[in-house]
């Protein structure tokens, strides 16, 4: 089942980017490094399926399936090459190497890598798309609209959090602390798999 105490390597900091808004392509690298000061991140392994609302205060790498929503306002989200999400995801930065269906909100940047298969709407201050990526959907690059959308998204999430959040919410950090308790993860989220993956 979940073993979210396990930690994977930090998101790779080397990114080939085409940044918007005239930003330096090194910006993503700096962001990734800053977000991963500890050099660790939570990992949802290949065999894990989650249905619900994932939220947390640490970097997260997804190699399994997540359906629902993901909220990491101060951290990076990486959908690894085996990761599949059908979710609206909000994070400080988002890197996609796997499959995404849903909307992606990146407060700083969204990077879609060459192997990614994405059908979604992207709203981000900077968007990077690598050659070879399969993408259908939209990319909003209007700074005014991006700012408005992101603040609206963050605002609505914070209100939900203040009022107790969604009943099926699955805080990533809480999962980490509960993982030591037998069966805790099963109770926390609609996890459908029983085998933890080694950290990638």
């Amino acid at each position, binding site marked *: 089942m979940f073993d979210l105490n396990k930690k994977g390597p930090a998101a790779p900091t080397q990114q080939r980017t085409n940044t918007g808004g005239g930003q330096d392509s090194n910006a993503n690298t700096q962001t990734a490094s800053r977000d991963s000061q500890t050099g660790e991140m939570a990992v949802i392994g290949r065999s894990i399926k989650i249905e619900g609302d994932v939220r947390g205060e640490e970097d997260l790498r997804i190699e399994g399936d997540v359906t629902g929503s993901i909220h990491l306002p101060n951290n990076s989200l990486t959908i690894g090459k085996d990761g599949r999400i059908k979710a609206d995801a909000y994070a400080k930065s988002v890197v996609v190497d796997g499959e995404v269906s849903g909307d992606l909100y990146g407060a700083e940047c969204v990077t879609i890598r060459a192997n990614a298969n994405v059908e979604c709407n992207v709203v981000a201050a900077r968007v990077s*798309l690598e050659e070879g*990526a399969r993408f259908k959907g*939209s990319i909003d690059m209007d700074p005014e609209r991006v700012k408005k959308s992101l603040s609206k998204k963050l605002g609505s999430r914070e209100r939900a959090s203040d009022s107790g959040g969604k009943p099926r919410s699955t805080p990533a950090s809480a999962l980490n602390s509960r993982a030591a308790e037998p069966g805790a993860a099963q109770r926390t989220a609609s996890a459908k798999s029983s085998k933890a993956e080694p950290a990638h």
Partner: protein
Amino acid sequence: MRAHSVTEPLGASMARAHFDAPREFGVPLFRSLIDKLNEDRRWVILDLGAARPQTVELLSRFRCRLEIADLADTVTASGVGAGDPVRFTDLSEALHANPGNEPVDIAFCWDFLNYLIPEQMTELIKGIAARCRPDAFVHALIAYSDPLMPQWPGQFMPVDDGRLLNLSTAEPQCLAPHYSPEDLTSWMPGVTIERVRLLTNGMQEYLFRLSDVVGASGFSRGH
């Protein structure tokens, strides 16, 4: 798709084809569109082609929402092949698969029209018009001088605001249809030709204006 030009369903090889001798060419009407983007307003742009980093990079300089339809991929996925105009309606519907709530101002339809029979062209323009605001622009490239063209729709990407790069494979090739302006306007009723330029690569660059496309419904009809 055009019966004489497609001998098999457009395969994944199209998307991952080996490209040789990419050709770069000036596109003055494209440049004029990019110049328009400097106006201080928000623009919604629909690219019927595949997602390209260079397109994202170019448009990121402006207040844009870029919608990527990747119709060639849709063709591949739906198995539409030679002489299959009926199923082409699926393709125009695919334009609505992920619609935004804003009307499109500019559509990039590079090279795709060369591979369509008249009925398909009519269906496609209806689909585009339904996504667009009235008087939206459609930018297209039509085979003109060369007797031959690549067997599958070309892949283009902007080099800068006034040049495109043609990534098409040289082989195999098929006869180019050489559609005339009269052909195009008669098969795309309600579309007017704003400007046409002959390009150095032998193609004609068209800037169409959607005025009152027959059969279209959507934003252009007040939604």
